[in-house]
């Protein structure tokens, strides 16, 4: 029995998996009509962007860092794309490329500050969050922009079921994120760095390069999410991605990635994002207003981290044989 419990506790993804099943069950019982394919596919389409950001954030949190600028990066990307393509008449694909470069620059700035200046990730990305959101407002003049060519907006509604691009991108991101984390020297170095920076450095791991890369990757993924959001809602808005950092961090820690670094799981993060998606859907169906959702998600964030701390504590006790079952 103890062996079973210990083995269960050792699976990082277990709490998120159980939570997801639980919410699905609640949804099936309270609103069975909601479990139809069309709704679930639409939900997937909406949450693919958050999923990509969360995969990037998993790598950052794996190193013991954090990036709260992702939501603002989505907004800045969307606005740069919108201003170039709809107001200045630049070719939309070129505009998307430039927007992605801006997002990568924001990520590179974060990474460089953390790596080179050894600044605290929270503050650096807080500064970037403020500046990038300000940039989005100043460039757009606070207005939303539409009038993208059809070839671009088609990205958001490519067959089958409008899912082609968002889900394709999420799948590519998730698979490469998982392989990078679990089966590459880079990934092993990343987790070693998260567990103990000093030990990682002394064992010859390129600590600085890893730090730069994880923030760069996350910035780029947030940029792609920004482009995809713009295509999906066919408008560029300075408010795009507002609060994404909050949802992405919740998904990552709910999925079992340790906030202090050293342990990370992309599969858990995907389960976390799915949980967030189904949870929101369920709250919508129950008629909860945005305010109730805000309240609920705040509790979920704290509870997810609290649960992880409790799980580690319990696992340690089970291992040392202090808890009798």
């Amino acid at each position: 029995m103890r062996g079973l419990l210990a083995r269960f506790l050792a699976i990082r993804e277990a709490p998120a998996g159980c939570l997801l099943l639980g919410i699905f069950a609640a949804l099936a019982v309270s609103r069975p009509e909601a479990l139809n394919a069309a709704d679930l596919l639409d939900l997937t389409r909406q949450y693919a962007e958050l999923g990509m950001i969360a995969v990037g954030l998993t790598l950052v949190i794996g190193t013991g860092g954090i990036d709260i600028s992702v939501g603002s990066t989505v907004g800045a990307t969307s606005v740069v794309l919108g201003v170039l393509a709809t107001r200045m008449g630049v070719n939309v694909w070129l505009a998307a490329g430039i927007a992605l470069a801006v997002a990568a620059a924001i990520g590179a700035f974060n990474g460089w500050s953390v790596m080179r200046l050894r600044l605290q990730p929270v503050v650096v990305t807080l500064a970037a969050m403020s500046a990038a959101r300000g940039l989005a407002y100043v460039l757009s003049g606070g207005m939303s922009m539409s009038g993208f060519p059809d070839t671009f907006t088609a990205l958001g509604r490519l067959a089958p079921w409008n899912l082609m691009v968002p889900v394709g991108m999420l799948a590519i991101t998730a698979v490469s994120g998982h392989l990078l984390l679990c089966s590459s020297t880079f990934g092993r170095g990343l987790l070693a760095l998260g567990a103990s920076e000093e030990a990682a450095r002394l064992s010859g791991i390129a600590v600085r390069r890893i730090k730069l890369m994880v923030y760069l990757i996350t910035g780029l993924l947030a940029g792609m999410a920004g482009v995809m959001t713009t295509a999906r809602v066919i408008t560029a808005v300075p408010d795009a991605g507002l609060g994404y950092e909050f949802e992405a961090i919740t998904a990552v820690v709910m999925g079992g990635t340790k906030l202090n670094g050293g342990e990370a799981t992309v599969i858990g993060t995907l389960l976390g994002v799915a949980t967030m998606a189904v949870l929101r859907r369920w709250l919508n169906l129950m008629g909860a207003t945005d305010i109730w959702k805000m309240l609920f998600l705040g509790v979920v964030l704290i509870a997810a981290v609290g649960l992880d701390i409790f799980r580690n504590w319990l696992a340690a006790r089970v291992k040392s044989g202090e808890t009798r079952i």
Partner: protein
Amino acid sequence: MARAKFQKIPRELPVFLFLLLICSAIAVARPIFLDPLNLRGLGRDLSIAGIMAVGMTYVILTGGIDLSVASVLAVSSGAAALMMLAGHSPLLACIAALAVGSVCGAANGFMVARLNIPPIIVTLGMLNILQAVAVLASKAMWLGPLPDSFSGLGHSLLPLAMLLFFILGGHFALSNTRWGRHIYAVGGNEEAARLAGISVPRIRASVYIVSGLAAAGAGIVMSSINSGIQANDALGYELTAIAAVVIGGTSISGGQGSVPGSIIGAAITIVLRNGLVLLGMEARWSDIIIGVAIFLAVAMDSLRRRG
């Protein structure tokens, strides 16, 4: 020798000179900056931001962070406004606001210090929870107008008196009490503080209570100035408070910094924002400038530490 001399210069001096520099630059470009009406507005803004910055200084000195201050402000001053509108005396309502603020802070402190949940997660969660509570309790309405006996205070010297109270009290407690020295000790080296017999969890919890109290104090000032309060009035103020503290020279990793520095930092953010408006620029430029200012402040701090 030269080095020792350099280190004797107070950390606050360069920031103070920078404040004087931008004040004179704006005053030269737009003389209306020195107009009594404008200065009075600056004083009100400074009293709100400054009070919050005093609380944030305590939290950041221990190496923590409090993102929930704007929501604590909304909940506590919302509670006070509801009491006043129900006919209770303003004094009672203000005491209630301070009580609500410290209870919110105590909740933050408990989760950070006792449950060991990282401060950024706790206060990010509380930011959402308390904001929602404030909106629900006020039914998303503006709570006002408040009784004249209270809102008249906002146009008297109350805001500045309150600010002065928080500055003096905050500074005195940090530099002249055992508790204050323990806060520096915990922020400087937690392990050493623990081994020296300091109750680290108690110190770490206490700073969030100070931050909650300060947020409530700022809320009282704000609602007396506006003769009312709406749940989203203070949205984004956590950023101003954090910016003020780091610009004022408090080290984000804890252990170093001071209340006067944070007040100078708060004055810089307020003056910059005012200057942008006077120069006729898009108000959102302030987000960019504050982002850049936070970055420069922490970068300079990091370079100074490595010397």
